[in-house]
């Protein structure tokens, strides 16, 4: 087998050194009734590289790839062009096949990248400090709620209706077991729920969680909410699922958010049918010891040279065990690297230009679609994603569009099944990969399926 270097001669020689007669002598601790006489029954045997490749090629062809079609899906995962150099660099074996940098003298590459990543994320979010990544946006969001509970010693979180429904579901699952109380709502097409959030804050509130832009693409000034939270001793958690937006709009930290979390998939990582993605997590300096996840910090070596190490580890499970701030161990290192490389390639100028292009494309698309009879725009404001209402349920329309070769958006019927008030809503994301032809194709296909 091509991944196994030992030869039969090696094996018998090594058994001799060990003093074992046969390989099964090394498995003596396995109870006899649990020992299998041969390979696990009911499964195929080994296959060549070519065979395996063919199998996957056949499966891959059964999927419609985003890049082969006019593509307008978002709702928490966005298609952006990723420069070829990103994928080249993350495949360097020294990055790809390294472990968590527990031996810093031979992991300075990973560690310096993490230090740069933390700084990039903190600056993008308008915060003091960021960690070395979480699993994804939804788990980062729950971790932020947990952290707010530790900081405030309160257990009631108020969640905006504009928070991605999967993020809400994750929080509900976890809260059921931790005893946290969640105040949740479904979104309204008539406007965002800032007033509801402000009204819900009381002396028991640990945090308010608001998505920016929200799941329908709407953008609110968070400053009044931040002020209300601060007055009540609660924390404001802002969730950013599209970091490219922050090349165009104010950072949540700038508006007073105490914790900013996000999904970093947009930059460098790609769609990948939902994972792996990269959770972003940033906060104020004063809360750093309540943060979950790994942190990389600067120090010096024995000769005074600058270097980097994982630090403040006493927050973490391998030291604090049952008193840890989180049980997270493995994070999303390679995706954080991809994010950081893409961000370095863009730089401030590139990020702003990219954001401007995304926004302009989205505005163009929205203007074209609302000209179709029966289609109207929900948003007063948006970045690269907006919601329209159609004259009939959007869920079937999405399938009809797909049949015409257009991947036309995410229906609110899929995100909020059973919510009649939302079923005609369609969330449409427009990034730099959308061409004039793609917009025309969506427009034409939508006209046809609505006719």
């Amino acid at each position, binding site marked *: 087998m091509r991944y196994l270097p030992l030869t039969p001669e090696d094996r018998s020689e090594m058994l001799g050194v060990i003093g074992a007669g046969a390989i099964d002598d090394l498995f003596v601790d396995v109870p006899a009734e649990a020992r299998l006489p041969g390979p696990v029954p009911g499964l195929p045997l080994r296959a060549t590289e070519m065979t395996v490749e063919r199998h996957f090629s056949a499966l891959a062809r059964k999927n419609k790839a985003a890049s082969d079609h006019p593509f307008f899906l978002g709702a928490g995962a966005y298609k952006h062009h990723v420069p070829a150099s990103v994928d080249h660099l993350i495949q360097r074996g020294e990055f790809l096949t390294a472990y968590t940098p527990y031996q810093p003298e031979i992991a300075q590459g990973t560690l310096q990248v993490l230090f740069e990543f933390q700084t990039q994320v903190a600056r993008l979010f308008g915060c003091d400090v960021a960690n070395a990544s979480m699993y994804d946006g939804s788990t980062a969001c729950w971790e932020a709620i947990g952290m707010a509970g530790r900081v405030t010693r309160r257990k009631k979180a108020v969640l905006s209706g504009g928070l991605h429904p999967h993020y809400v579901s994750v929080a509900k699952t976890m809260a059921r077991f931790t005893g946290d109380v969640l105040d949740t709502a479904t979104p309204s097409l008539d406007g965002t729920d800032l007033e509801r959030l402000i009204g819900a804050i009381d002396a028991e509130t640990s945090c308010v969680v608001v998505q920016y832009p929200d799941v329908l693409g709407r953008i609110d000034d968070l400053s009044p909410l931040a002020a209300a939270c601060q007055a009540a001793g609660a924390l404001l958690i802002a969730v950013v699922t599209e970091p490219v937006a922050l090349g165009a709009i104010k950072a949540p930290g700038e508006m007073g958010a105490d914790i900013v979390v996000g999904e970093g998939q947009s930059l460098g990582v790609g769609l990948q049918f939902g994972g792996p993605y990269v959770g972003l997590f940033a906060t104020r300096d004063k809360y750093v*010891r309540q943060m979950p996840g790994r942190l990389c910090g600067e120090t010096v070596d024995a000769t005074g040279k600058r270097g980097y190490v994982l630090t*403040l*580890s*006493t927050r973490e499970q391998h*030291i*604090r065990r049952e*008193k840890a701030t989180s049980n997270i161990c493995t994070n999303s290192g390679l995706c954080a690297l991809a994010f950081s490389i893409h961000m370095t390639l863009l730089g401030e100028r590139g990020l702003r230009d990219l954001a401007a292009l995304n926004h302009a494309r989205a505005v163009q698309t929205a203007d074209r679609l609302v000209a179709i009879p029966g289609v109207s725009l929900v948003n007063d404001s948006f970045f690269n994603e907006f919601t329209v209402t159609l004259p009939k349920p959007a869920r079937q329309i999405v399938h009809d569009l797909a049949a015409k070769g257009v991947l036309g958006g995410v229906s609110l019927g899929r995100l909020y099944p059973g919510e009649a008030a939302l079923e005609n809503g369609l969330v449409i994301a427009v990034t730099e990969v959308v061409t004039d032809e793609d917009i025309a194709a969506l427009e034409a296909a939508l006209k046809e399926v609505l006719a």
Partner: protein
Amino acid sequence: MTRYFTKDHEWIDVDGTSGIVGITDYAQSQLGDITYVDLPAAGSAVKKGDAPCVVDSVKAASDVYSPVSGTIAAANDALGDTPELVNTDPEQGGWLFRIDLSDAAELDGLMDKAAYDAYIAEL
């Protein structure tokens, strides 16, 4: 003022109903370089054996148990910027918190210096 010691390597200086708590020189030598001290908030109530304070080194986080019950009166704020005081001056400048005792009888079970020295000699 009288100094008492615990088997968990805390010391407490008691003056009337007021006590000052820290960890012993032996404890700091076992913990290594102290990097951070998580201090209790003034006004919080603690029971004997609670852990109102945590002392971090690079690779460990160690609970500091209160030798007595009472109310936290103050914490040693100097440790915020210079946690290394716990290493360099554990039994004076590196004190952790001040506590108002609610039951002076709890001191009866603690050791004096001679007993503590004999105790650590056995470890």
